[in-house]
């Protein structure tokens, strides 16, 4: 099975090609540039490198969020449009689970991927090793750094914190969690699309047309509207064919 993995949900962009569980090519870039400019040339480059044709693709694995709204949308739009127009499988994977895949398989420890969400908040999840696989313990969430650090401290277990954005919250981490940290090398701090292609092997394909990013957060305007209009049930009907 030929699989394309795509993650553009944060500053790091990673694209990979794998044949079943064998990596063929991978590109990971950590520069402040626009994913809309970078992504398709990177995909094209890897296909050339691997001497693959687009129509040979069997499956696409995409990081579906959380992360930068625009970043997530670029990856998801390219993934779902490719999958739809090539009639191949589409699999969506949490961007946090993708990063958690960089964790060490240490029994009893928690793997905690982190993306900055600005204004003292983060996107994070809690993952653990089970049957040699890294699986979620809790749902991914949007949370304030202080609440998050307190919650982790209460766990009283060894922690593998992952993500370059942790640098922005160094003080909170040092103050609250320094005793339980397991230090991981630099190479583990960045999302890698090959982790997506590997996870995608075990997942069921999703319906392409209705596939959406998982933003975790409702858009601000929508949140306000829902608070002001509690009698309205969420659930669409907003789009009209002309």
């Amino acid at each position, binding site marked *: 099975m030929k699989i394309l993995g795509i993650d553009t949900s944060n500053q790091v962009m990673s694209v990979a090609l794998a044949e079943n569980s064998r990596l063929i090519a991978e590109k990971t870039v950590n520069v402040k540039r626009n994913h809309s400019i970078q992504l398709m040339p990177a995909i094209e480059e890897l296909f050339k490198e691997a001497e693959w044709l*687009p129509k040979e693709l069997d499956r696409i694995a995409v990081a579906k969020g959380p992360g930068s709204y625009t970043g997530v949308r*670029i990856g998801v739009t*390219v993934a*779902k*449009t*490719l999958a739809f127009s090539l009639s191949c499988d589409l699999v969506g994977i949490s961007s946090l689970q993708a990063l958690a895949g960089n964790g060490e398989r240490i029994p009893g420890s928690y793997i905690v991927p982190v993306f900055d969400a600005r204004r003292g908040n983060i996107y994070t999840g809690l993952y653990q090793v089970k049957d040699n696989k890294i699986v979620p313990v809790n749902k991914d969430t949007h949370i304030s750094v202080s609440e998050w650090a307190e919650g982790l401290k209460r766990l009283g277990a060894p922690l593998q914190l992952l993500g370059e954005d942790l640098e922005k919250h160094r003080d909170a981490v040092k103050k609250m969690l320094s005793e339980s940290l397991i230090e991981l090398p630099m190479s583990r701090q960045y999302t890698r699309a090959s982790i997506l292609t590997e996870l995608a092997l075990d997942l069921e394909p999703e319906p392409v047309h209705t596939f959406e990013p998982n933003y975790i957060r409702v858009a601000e*305007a929508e949140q306000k509207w829902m608070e002001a209009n509690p009698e309205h049930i969420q659930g669409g009907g907003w789009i009209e064919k*002309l």
Partner: protein
Amino acid sequence: MSSKLILAIETSCDETSAAVIENGNRMLSNIVASQVKSHQRFGGVVPEIASRHHVEQITLIIEEAMREADVTYEELDAVAVTEGPGLVGALLIGVNAAKAVAFAHQIPLIAVNHIKGHIFANQLVNEMKYPLLSLVVSGGHTELIYMDNPGSYEIIGETRDDAAGEAYDKIGRVIGVPYPGGKHIDEMAHKGKDTYHFPRAMIKEDNYDFSFSGLKSAFINTVHNAKQKNEVLNDENLAASFQAAVVDVLVDKTIRAVKEKQAKQLVLAGGVAANKGLREALTQAVKNEAEGVELLIPPLDLCGDNAAMIGAAAFVQLEKGEFADYTLNGRPGLSV
């Protein structure tokens, strides 16, 4: 001439649209999914919500356009997409979807300017003849564009502040009609009379530029002062007075420009081209003051944002071999 097929995609604002166009002038399909009901909740387009809706709709709309046109990807000569101007987050969905289709099927990619698209909407109905003058009026634009040939664009006049459509939406909010206000104001205007005589800004000036912010302020002040004095104004007369002020300036300057430039055709384009008051006044003025000039007004379904017009404009670029590469990005502030 052999037949050339373009799949076109447009997501610059709050409509997700895809179309298949043959030879730049024949519409095989034109699917438009409007988000207007969603944005009505907020009284205007919320960019983040628009982008989210585009992601939800994009492949559905492309599939429907391909199916209705009964065309396969192998038959396509190019994929065209709006690169700008528009909302950046919204543009990015169309741009990335178009790149994905182009890569998947190894077909050329064409980047289209949204404003040029509005002008070329006319090509789907009538053959465009040059030299041509176009009045582009929408929620984001008010421009007089002169064209010597299909690929040359000269802006000879533009708004210095608000776009005409923007002014409509703003005063619509003051009168209290649902977003977008233009259609409602137009309907009300037909029942009222120009009794308030709002200023016709820049109408006497020796240029082709426009200004609508003074008119908007005059309108708001009139309503505000009446409220303070507990006077009740006639909304239909207010709408008629506002519309007369906008239309007078647009028509006056456009007729002057069409005569000076000795254009063969005058083309109306953009969302405000759907305005009945403007359509009627321009038709009358061309008849009375610009004899011999052919006036093209697009049918109502091609006035608003749609992908068919993008496919029509893209055909000119296809013929010239003007293609984009995979670094194509959204360009929110792109000018013609």
